[in-house]
């Protein structure tokens, strides 16, 4: 029979009374934080998504220090001291790729339709995703330092400088992540985000002072190395951790951070608004 009997609803059938929204100031900030919390919950539920920021620095440190340390620096300990800030910067840069991959996956799902149908500032879902990733960058910084300490790495400056070095690395990651966020709006598949971002990050991390002193590099490459944002981040972190000359590295790093935000944040937001 198509005239089915309605099964009684098991719950009490009373519809809840209507509620009245009560708009308050700082909507963008509050909504972004609520959405950042969503990212955090998702991260906590899928700890395997943290492999790129936990296991990768460990593997890179062990392999590079014990395989190349003797050849490059004459002793594994000296090379560890030199390499750790570089590995931190490299992992921070590759760790940013995940936000692009995740957003690209998320955008294909109905949840972003829901966000767009709510009276939420258009930039809040993207800001929330970027802010929520702070925890990933803190984890990468701590896990790199932890394994470094086990291997014998020591910060030779003061605690304040050490904290400043870590904070600079996390800030750099937050600003750089607008690039993969933008890329995620422009390409069709998560795989494409990953591929494109690796193609951008790999040259940045190798044509730099991450693994070797720049004086050994050919002249034509030094021009690139000198403007490479990772070179400046690594230089700044080395200075803050080990007391090597800081030069203008901190300023250049901050300038690059500002540059990433000024260029890629508006591009990403515009692409997000246009996206169907």
């Amino acid at each position: 029979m198509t005239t089915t009997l309605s099964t009684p609803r098991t719950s009490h059938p009373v519809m809840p009374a209507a509620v009245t929204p009560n708009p308050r100031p700082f909507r963008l900030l509050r909504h972004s934080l609520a959405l950042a919390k969503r990212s955090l919950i998702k991260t906590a539920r899928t700890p395997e998504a943290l492999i790129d920021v936990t296991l990768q620095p460990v593997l890179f440190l062990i392999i590079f220090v014990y395989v190349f340390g003797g050849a490059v620096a004459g002793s594994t300990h000296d090379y560890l001291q030199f390499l750790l800030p570089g590995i931190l910067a490299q992992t921070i840069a590759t760790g940013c790729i995940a936000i692009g991959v995740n957003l690209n996956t998320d955008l294909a799902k109905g949840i972003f339709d829901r966000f767009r149908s709510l009276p939420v500032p258009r930039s809040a879902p993207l800001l929330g995703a970027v802010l929520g990733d702070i925890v990933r960058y803190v984890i990468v910084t701590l896990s790199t330092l932890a394994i470094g300490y086990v291997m014998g790495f020591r910060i030779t400056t003061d605690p304040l400088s050490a904290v400043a070095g870590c904070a600079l690395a996390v800030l750099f990651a937050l600003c750089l992540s607008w690039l993969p966020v933008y890329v995620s709006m422009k390409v069709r598949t998560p795989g494409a985000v990953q591929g494109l971002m690796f193609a951008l990050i790999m040259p940045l991390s190798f044509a730099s002072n991450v693994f070797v002193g720049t004086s050994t590099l050919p002249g034509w490459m030094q021009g690139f190395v000198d403007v490479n944002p990772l070179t400046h981040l690594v230089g700044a972190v080395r200075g803050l951790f080990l007391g090597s000359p800081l030069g203008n590295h901190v300023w250049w790093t901050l300038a690059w951070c500002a540059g990433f935000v000024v260029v890629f944040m508006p591009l990403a937001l515009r692409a997000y608004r246009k996206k169907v």
Partner: protein
Amino acid sequence: MTAELVIEAEGLVKHFGSTKALQGVDLAVPRGTVLGVLGPNGAGKTTAVRILSTLLTPDAGHARISGFDVVRDAERVRQVIGLTGQYASVDEDLTGRQNLELFGTLLDLGRAGARRRAAELLEWFDLTDAAGRQAKTYSGGMRRRLDLAASLVGSPDVIFLDEPTTGLDPAKREDMWDVVRSLVTAGSTVLLTTQYLEEADALADEITVIDHGRVIAHDTPEGLKRVVGGQTLSVRPADPAQLPLTAAILAEVSAGAEADEIRKGMLAVPVADDTAMTEAVARLAAAGVAVTELALHLPSLDEVFFTLTGRTASDDDTTTTTTTTIKEEVAA
């Protein structure tokens, strides 16, 4: 007849490349009523809902929700609408409760308000026991309920339901219908898309039929049923020898038509209204006819489309000439 229109669309056009999703669609929904938008897959129903809920901008035409233009006043529109998509639009990694609390926060209910609202809606949708589980572990029916609950967090005046029961079993579908009726009783205005005439008939005050991005009929359910034919009563007598007797009884209760044997041992006859069924049951019992199957059907979407356009809903655009003539007849 000058009831306030809460949803108004005029001449909506939307093309995606060479696909003409909408080719000039008008919709009108008075306050406190339900409009059923009936059409097959690819008719443009979802595109229309996405434009009305500010997710898409129309290429031409305009639409207003509670008087706010969906393009120019999109932000105001978003404050009064709730959208339940064809595919569950909740975060599958979050629990049911976390989802609803997130939307409550985004709707400025405040922390305590969002928590209270989530608890109420979970209770109403019978999801309290599952509230602490990730949405991805929910069954299809639970996910639909959570999705609908999510669109009701802000107590919207206008609710868009894009195929809310597609894929649900009949009992779950009836539950969903009850919810929609409660919403309308509470004063909401609902636009519902569906592929089932039965669903539109059960819920809608008026039905707009769209096909290939155009409105091909707009009427009350009764009016539409008059055009496409009303219900069909089908009966399978337990003893095939009683088929002639059964046919005679069915002819008496029918709307003046002979009974057809639509399948082996199964007779069907068009009937005017629901009372025909009761009458048929009484007469069959009086005549001593035992039946194994007895059902009242509304025409399927295919039958509706066949009547309105001269082709089935799944057909391609090959019979355009016939389509136009018959459409004109219907309009006349």
